[in-house]
């Protein structure tokens, strides 16, 4: 992969130019164990009255009341994925403009309150750096995996290639939408190695 890069000289944005709320928001993000712990001691344990308290939540990445009070918005989704490292360059997907804030869409919108079991769809359109980039699938997979790991289970993540940016969008989109293929890909050691490396830089 290293000796034959598809895109040796991509346009790079400066990290400081990228839209972010990371600095002030990161304490509320799912992966922050301290924040989770603090929540647990300071708040009423809402799960006791939850009608689904007998349902096992994958690995309890966050407590439900986080979302009631502070809904996840597009910026937060963007912050979750913009730090993913490109598999070919030591640069983030945000800097490469592979992921862009306007290409993140949440339905129903974060401002609409909804019950924790109701689905929210997150649609992310990724723009591979060049049209025939053979790594488009891997890029998309990285974004999907990152969001599925970080978001609560009622979020459905759809990752598609932005129209016109890639010569085989339909094929790539279909692959990225296929749960069974994604699951199998994560059991493929080589691919898993690449993905782990991409996601290493995520907070």
């Amino acid at each position, binding site marked *: 992969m290293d000796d034959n890069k598809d895109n040796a000289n991509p346009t790079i944005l400066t990290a400081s130019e990228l839209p972010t709320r990371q600095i002030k928001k990161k304490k509320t993000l799912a992966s922050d164990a301290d924040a989770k712990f603090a929540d647990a001691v300071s708040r009423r344990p809402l799960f006791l009255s939850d009608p689904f308290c007998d349902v*096992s939540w994958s690995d309890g990445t966050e407590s439900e009341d986080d979302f009631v009070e502070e809904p996840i918005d597009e910026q937060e989704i963007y912050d979750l994925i913009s730090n993913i490292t490109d598999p070919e360059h030591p640069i983030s997907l945000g800097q490469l403009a592979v992921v862009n804030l306007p290409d993140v869409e949440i339905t129903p919108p974060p401002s609409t309150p909804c019950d924790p079991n*109701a689905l929210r769809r997150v649609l992310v359109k990724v723009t591979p750096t060049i049209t025939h980039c053979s790594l488009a699938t891997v890029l998309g997979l990285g974004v999907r995996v990152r969001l599925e790991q970080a978001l609560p289970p*009622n979020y459905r993540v759809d990752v598609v290639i932005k129209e016109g940016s890639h010569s085989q969008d339909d094929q790539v989109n279909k692959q990225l939408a*296929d749960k069974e293929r994604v699951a*199998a890909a994560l059991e493929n050691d080589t691919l898993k190695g690449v993905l782990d490396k991409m996601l290493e830089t995520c907070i």
Partner: protein
Amino acid sequence: MASADTEATGAGANSAVKLTALTPFKPELYDRAWQSIPHPTLPLIATAHEKSTTVFSLSTLTSHSTLSGGHTRSVRSVAWKPNLSPHKLCLVSGSFDSTAGLWRWEDEKKSTGDDLEVEITAASAGNDDSSDKDCAAEKDWEFALVLEGHDSEIKSVSFSPSGAYLATCSRDKSVWIWEDVGVNEDDDEWETVAVLNEHDGDVKAVAWCPDFSGSDSRSGGPRGRYSSDVLASASYDDTVRIWREDGDGEWVCVAVLEGHTGTVWGLQWEPKPEGTRFPRLLTWSADQTLRLWTLQEEDDDGEEENAPAPHAWGGLGGIPNTMRRSLKEDWECTATLPKAHTRDVYSAAWSADSARIASTGSDGVIAVYGEEPAAANSETSQDEAAVELDGDVQMGNSGKAKSAPPLYDMENSGHGPFEINHVTWCKRYDMGCAPERRGVEEMLVTTGDDGVVRPWQVS
């Protein structure tokens, strides 16, 4: 929430079908589980999850045994070998490691009676069913055979009704048919009899047509055009294909069913067709729809010379052998089920007893549809059920067999916020069911990304 619904709308005797969540099987599996397949006759259900399979007892709703250590990647699909004596179990597991494993479980103390039989008797007699359980759990599954051949993940495995054939399918775009050539049941020798390569994408599921009342006359006799076994496969290429064995022992594709606009996730044959009509096929897809397909049978009147009995295969009298491959069956999509899903439909199940269909998928919705049998079913009112539907739904106007079955009930968030990967019908044997109804009353079992395997009372 299910109970609230029942209270609110379940008042009338004629009301539509209602789903009520029952306590999940124990222990919960805590990680994605793909599917749960009930044993054809015994009160057992096998759940594929991670690299193993857990068998639950339908009597105790707890784990009966676990099949682990045979696969290096996730087990995606399982199938019970049919027609075995009650003290033997045989299960095939299809895995992402590209192999299928054949497992056997045998009761060694045959002389003193069969645990499994005891289990059934105890359950149906309403006795306490805790006493016989422990010895069953002590026994172990033997990993008897590995079926190797596929190049990539196996997605589905299925036994033919007699158990003589096993079909497997894979991301490698192929369907393999294996034949049990062992001299007796314990002799595990399987041969590959066909590798079917016509799909243009992953083959997601395979299903054998069940035996049905018309199947003898339809097979065209012992030297008829095709043998009576019929296999269907669903694919990532958005199509379904139907396969039969011709007179030369070649498995050929006799029909390509085109219509879905996304991956076809699965399919099931009609379990109990009316009269001698050929079973219809139910398919479900990433396009969020479920469709019913019907074989366009020709009139029986012998326009073909020497046509063997009424048959459905296009009449081959006088047509040379070499042209047979080009002869196709004519299958048409005759109904699309009312829209209930907003994302991929991952699974559906068609009950042999009630002819009801249940479906589920990525949206976590469990939907139940009913088709009025030809003889009117007095306890359900189709019109009332149809009231729940939106105006754009195709619904049966007069309960005719060809119309789409109306939607009876929908349960949102069947597994909380999680995706549901599988739904199946099976019989109740648990203590919560009246003793005289055990082994008779139907329930649904759903399997989800949360690792929960949940039974549902259907009333």
